[in-house]
């Protein structure tokens, strides 16, 4: 695979993002439209009543000798200046803007003759707040005097109305959008669910699970892909089965002739002994050793090939108590070692130690490690089994032999690597035991580590198996 992009494009995103834009643009235009519409309507409605107030007040202006008088009852005044939300005010000014009656702080615009015909509207500030005002001027029919009536009110009510109207238009749009998105998202997810389930299932699988994927409820669009994957899985299964059979057949075909050679060589030696020819013939000894090595090598190669195929299929390893397994697998080697005068001990708890393992192949691992220790290690060999804190098991094979040089550690598990003993083939080793052990442990999903002097007093192999 080439460099993967930061995040692969998601189908859900691709479907929902254009829709989201459409919705957002619609929402924005609705909001703007609503603002102008509401603002305009509110302005018109409130301006009319403001004008009416100004005209009504102007109608109350009476003319006396001393000048204009505003004949307003207290009730009317209160009605004018009192409002639940808006602050109102009024003033009567003369043509120079000098207040004659009312609230002197109410802002009065410069006199405009047009205000004699009809009330004029203006914007100003009153007590630190923006206000809308109306001015209406009246002229005395008798004396030549003109006064203007100014009425102002703060804009809280208008703003509230604008807000209400905006809300009434925008809120349903937002709600509709949200519902649409929820439904769309749900629909898309539902449509993609079979694929999600499929990839979830693939993700949960073990590395070597080659069973076909279930086809039910896979959408028609994805069916060819899933079927192709299943074909590939079947191919893998098939070739694993084929390789397995090949290994089993090869085992038979190779082992039988080697068994023949071995039996013949051994019988030849006995025959020579019976004929009175001294035992320990160098030629025969060499022949025996060669056949023995050949048998071992074939056994190990088959084991290596076998382990590669055996653990390829999922479901062949299972959680099990590894203690009896280790006992059974190592018993022959341990007895053999004891007869040769070695000290071999197994330390295991009385309780079961459960880990993910396979009865044959874990046995093969421990047997190979023990065989290695008996071949190259010291006089004392310890096998230790203990449960791991988070579940799983730890198997240790340790000896008090010379160990290896630290720089040789990384090569220990390479097939046919035999360190400095490469020229010394008389130990009967094949150079495959540790490679086999490491291969199997990896396939069991565990780890195999080696440690040597000075870290430990000899050589130590540690197998850790998952729970």
């Amino acid at each position, binding site marked *: 695979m080439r460099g993967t992009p930061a995040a692969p494009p998601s189908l859900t995103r691709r479907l929902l993002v254009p829709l989201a834009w459409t919705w957002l643009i619609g929402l924005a235009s609705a909001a703007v439209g609503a603002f102008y519409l509401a603002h305009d309507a509110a302005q018109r409605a409130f301006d009319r009543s403001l004008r009416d107030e100004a005209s009504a007040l102007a109608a109350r202006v009476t003319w006396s000798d001393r000048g204009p008088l505003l004949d307003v009852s207290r009730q009317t005044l209160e009605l004018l200046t009192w409002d639940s939300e808006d602050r109102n005010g009024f003033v009567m000014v003369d043509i120079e803007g000098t207040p004659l009656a009312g609230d002197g702080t109410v802002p009065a615009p410069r006199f405009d003759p047009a205000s004699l015909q009809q009330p004029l509207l203006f914007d100003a500030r009153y007590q630190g707040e923006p206000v809308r005002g109306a001015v209406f001027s009246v002229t005395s029919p008798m004396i030549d005097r003109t006064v203007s009536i100014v009425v102002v009110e703060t804009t809280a009510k208008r703003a509230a109305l604008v807000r209400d109207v905006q809300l009434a238009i925008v809120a349903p749009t937002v709600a509709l959008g949200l519902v649409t998105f929820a439904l769309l998202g749900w629909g898309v997810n539902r449509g993609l669910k079979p694929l999600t389930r499929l990839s979830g299932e693939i993700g949960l699988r073990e590395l070597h699970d080659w069973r076909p994927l279930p086809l039910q409820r896979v959408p028609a669009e994805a069916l060819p892909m899933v079927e192709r994957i299943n074909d590939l899985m079947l191919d893998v299964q098939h070739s694993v089965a084929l390789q397995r059979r090949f290994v089993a057949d090869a085992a038979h075909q190779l082992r039988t002739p080697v*068994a023949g050679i071995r039996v013949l060589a051994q019988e030849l030696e006995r025959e020579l002994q019976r004929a009175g020819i001294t035992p320990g013939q160098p030629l025969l000894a060499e022949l025996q050793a060669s056949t023995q090595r050949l048998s071992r090598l074939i056994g190990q190669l088959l084991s290596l090939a076998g382990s590669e195929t055996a653990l390829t299929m999922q479901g062949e390893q299972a959680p099990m108590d590894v203690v009896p397994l280790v*006992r059974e697998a190592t018993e022959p080697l341990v*007895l053999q070692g004891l007869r040769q005068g070695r000290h071999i001990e*197994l330390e295991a708890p009385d309780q079961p130690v459960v880990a993910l393992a396979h009865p044959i192949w874990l046995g093969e691992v421990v047997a190979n490690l023990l065989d290695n220790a008996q071949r190259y290690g010291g006089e004392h060999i310890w096998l230790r089994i203990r449960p791991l804190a988070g579940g799983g098991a730890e198997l240790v094979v340790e000896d008090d032999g010379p160990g290896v040089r630290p720089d040789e550690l990384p090569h220990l598990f390479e097939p046919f690597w035999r360190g400095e003993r490469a020229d010394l083939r008389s130990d009967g080793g094949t150079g495959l035991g540790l490679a086999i052990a490491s291969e199997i442990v990896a396939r069991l999903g565990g780890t195999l580590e080696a440690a040597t002097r000075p870290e430990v007093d000899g050589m130590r192999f540690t197998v850790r198996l998952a729970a």
Partner: protein
Amino acid sequence: MRVLLVEDDHALIVGVRHALQAEGWRVDVLSCGEQAAHAGLSGEHDVAVLDLGLPRRDGMDVLRHWRSRGARFPVLMLTARDQLADRVAGLDAGADDYLVKPFDLPELLARLRALGRRAAGRAENMLLLGELVLHVNDRELRHRGERVALSPRELALTELLMGKAGRVVPKDQIVARLSSWESDFSENSVEVYVHRLRKRFAELGVVIRTVRGFGYVMEAADPAPP
């Protein structure tokens, strides 16, 4: 002893037949499973060596045929497949022992000898190990015909170990067997008894080895070469 050798590899036939004849045994060789299935029912053989991979009729099939027709003679199975499943299937089908190819000739001979003796012993309910003979019915242990005096508990332990001679007997199995004699029989008591028996058997050519972490194994002091 008359041995039925069922094998199809020529080199193996020549070598094994030669070795068996040198032991003074009579050997009948068959290479075909079909013939072997009939020959095994003649009742003329004391023991059979049966290869699992045979032409025409599988060795396992031959073995089942023998056992289903009541042939009780011991059968040593030869297999080139060391898969546990194959071994278990073979033992389930009625094999008494098995060897994985390639095997050592002395080992084959030793096992055949043991099978032959065990078959003879089974008839009289005897256990044999080296020069020791345990008459199970009479509860008597004899060494070269002479009676070896043992307490009932020592005898029970000997029987258990001899019954599995050459194989490890786990400590807890011994405790389970002997605790019927004494209610509070502990693992420490096992050591006491093993120690006693070990001293008794030291001069009789039999050893009891302690396999730490495994159990105990009883075998001839000079066992067949590995």
